[in-house]
């Protein structure tokens, strides 16, 4: 009897909530209508393509209708997990991703804090502009610059090292696999550092000046101010960006690796997206490519939720 009443109560509550929803919806109909295009946009570009995931369970052939395709269950995934190359590729992807996250967070934050401490406005502006310009240069050009600089044939880096007497033979940086991850990380930092700094500078600008004044009155020196005011002030920005980039951990793209890699460093340069391209699309194995993509998305979702949950627990910051 009691159970029935509670369920009835729940139902009425649910009904009421629904009625409330429709009432608010009608009241705010213009706002809802304004958001409609974006919902359609998201649906068309993010959800509708998910239908294509069915390909991963087929032996897909172009120009055959959906009904005519061969269904093969999890065969494509089995092939994927049985391939040695896949594990090598995962290792490279994760390694470069982690290195990228560590450097890609530490450097812009330090740079932003340092810029913030600069007194001369003119110099600050100058440094900021110069540092974010590389962001607008395409990877193709950056790869060209990096290759030239690291060249053993009058490359700048080798010339400097030789001049300093650190080495007596030019080093073929791009010919050694174990340098590759580092080169990728450093060139990525060089290209994106200034751009990523902007967001932290904006967050720092949002910190009230009164806090700094109060700290100064209490006798805090500049280091103490940074540690106790600036960094905690931008903590939520840092955490949110970190959660998002953990979600993208295995989706690191392939431009850098593709453009800077060569056959000698193949074991270190091949990444998941490149693998999906070479062993999927280029060989017309559309189903296999889709399977890699699904794997990619599933892992990303898991990572995203884990990171989000962890940070929610530890720092009480989260994006959901």
């Amino acid at each position: 009897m009691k159970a029935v009443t509670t369920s009835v109560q729940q139902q009425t509550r649910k009904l009421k909530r629904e009625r409330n929803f429709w009432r608010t919806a009608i009241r705010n109909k213009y706002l809802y209508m304004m958001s409609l295009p974006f919902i359609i946009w998201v649906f068309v570009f993010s959800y509708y393509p998910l239908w294509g995931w069915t390909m991963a369970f087929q032996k897909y052939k172009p120009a055959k209708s959906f009904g005519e395709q061969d269904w093969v269950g999890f065969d494509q995934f089995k092939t994927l997990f049985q391939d040695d190359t896949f594990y090598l590729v995962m290792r490279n992807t994760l390694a470069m991703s982690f290195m990228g996250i560590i450097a890609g967070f530490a450097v812009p934050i330090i740079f932003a804090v340092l810029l913030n401490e600069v007194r001369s406005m003119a110099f600050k502006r100058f440094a900021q502009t110069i540092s974010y310009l590389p962001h607008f240069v395409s990877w193709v050009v950056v790869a060209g610059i990096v290759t030239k600089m690291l060249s053993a044939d009058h490359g700048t880096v080798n010339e400097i090292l030789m001049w300093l007497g650190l080495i007596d033979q030019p080093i073929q940086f791009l010919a050694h696999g174990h340098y590759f991850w580092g080169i990728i990380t450093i060139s990525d930092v060089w290209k994106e550092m200034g751009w990523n700094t902007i967001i932290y500078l904006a967050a720092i600008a949002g910190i009230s000046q009164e806090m700094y004044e109060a700290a100064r009155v209490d006798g805090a020196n500049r280091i103490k101010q940074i540690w106790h005011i600036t960094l905690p002030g931008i903590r939520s920005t840092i955490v949110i960006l970190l959660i998002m980039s953990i979600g993208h951990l295995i989706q690191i793209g392939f431009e850098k690796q593709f453009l800077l890699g060569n056959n000698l460093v193949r074991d270190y340069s091949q990444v998941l997206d490149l693998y999906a391209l070479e062993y999927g699309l280029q060989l017309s194995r559309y189903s296999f490519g889709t399977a890699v993509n699904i794997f990619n998305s599933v892992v990303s979702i898991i990572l995203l939720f884990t990171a989000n949950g962890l940070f929610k627990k530890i720092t009480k910051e989260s994006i959901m």
Partner: protein
Amino acid sequence: MNQISKWSSLALSTTLVAGLLAGCGSNNNNEDNAASPDTSSNTGTESAAPEDTSPLTLTYYSEDPSPNWANMQDEIGKNLTEKTGITLDAEFAVGDAVQKSSLIAASGEYPDLISAKQSIAKFVDAGAVLDLTDLIDKYAPNLKKLFEGNMSRLRYSDDDHAIYVIPSYNGIGQEYFNAGGGFELQHRVVKELGYPQIRTVADYEKAIKDYLALHPKDENGNPNIGLTLNADDWHMYISVTNPAFLATGGSDDGEFNINVDTQEVTYHFRRPEEKEYFKWLNHMNAEGLLDPESFVQKYDQYKAKIASGRVLGLIDQDWDYGDGEKALKAEGKFEYGYGHYPVTMSEDIKEASFWPTGFMAGSGVAISVDNPDPVRTIKFLDYLASDEGQVLMNWGIEGKHYNVVDGKRVIPQEVNDRKINDATNFTKETGIGLYNLLSGHYGDGVKDPSGNYYTTNFPEQIEAGFNDVEKEVLKAYNSTTWKDLFPKEEEFKIKPWGAAWNIPVPGDSEAVVIEKKLTDITWKRIPEVILAKPADFDKIWDAYQQELVKADVEKAESIREDLVKARVKLWNE
């Protein structure tokens, strides 16, 4: 970083959408398929009526880039549009052409004319191209005449005798008058050393070594480079791996070596002879004669290096390094240009660059099921294959680009000079050379009914094209062209299968993935063995061979062998 991953996921989603569209699009294709025979029979009854030259724009996709394409606004293009009413809206693949073809094949929206070389298999699998057998029979007398005796070679496969492609890459009766491959040495090297014989890798190495000892630096103080290789992406085949079989007496069958008598197929890196070739390259590296950047440099760096004139030796094809050499010629540094030598491991091995294949059908133009008017399209292609059309494509317009003097076609001196020295602009303005891959045609060395050659490549013309330094070097070697140095076609037995790289592998064959794996292994291991310490060479080579076996190389060989045998049957029955 966020930015990039967004783009990559967008790219992947686009692919998925494209795939979906392909699924939806198939119905339309079937309709078109059903519709085309109607159109052909309709026009068939009216064929007595004057030719339809109303404007018609056809889309055209080609897997080969054509950087000088002028949207048919060149002189030949205007002429063609005037004669046939057809304008081509062309798209040329840039970058990874095979991938581009895959995408188009998957999209379900096909260009009207498709020239996709080996990727045509993807279009055939997708049902995207028309069977041209009847169209050729009814509307294309010139094509029929052109391919007479070779019609069985046009058929797609042993299981599918349809004709999907009009072969346009290989000319009928093609003769080669000049060599563009082999091993290259700068003219200044052989000249300074008193024209030594360059026949074996030892001769080649000695020439480079001796010259470097005399001139370690160029006039600007930069070190001269002994030998550089071009290993950026697919150039790896041309400059690193193909020379391995050429220098050991094998002919070009892609990644395989095929016994001409038994048709036994071997992955060519497994031949013991080739181990010796790579050992020699390893030795070149150890001696410091090989450019240490060979496997790191990108294609543009390679070309820039050649254009600097510092590179003494190359192992490449002229079309691959030509841009660099052109820059040198434009500066008048003719002695920095390259000569071609038939270098092999030892003198008893014949360099097989000119091993004859017979007429090679396969790569060419196909008409898609989306084509609005297949009949007019085939007539257009037929016009290009006619005597008039071929002379127009190759020679240009009479009175403008050539004159007929005493029944002979002659290119006026000033036109020829522009053709050689201002090639890009000349091509853009006149269109000469832009239309040759559009339809079937005769090869170099074939004469038309008027007794003139169809193409402008014939011995006299080629000899006239050599610069003075080249002529001097050739004379010193008692030759008139580079080809004279190479073994002749007649010395080899014709390969009844053409060439293995020209045999399409079915898209769902296991061989596709195995061969991709093999290429990955080879492209990684070959640079490694070349750059290894000579003492480690054998160890790494053995590890490489074992890796190949582990990757199922034997299975790939047996699949290829079946394909080769099927091709021999198809072409020779």
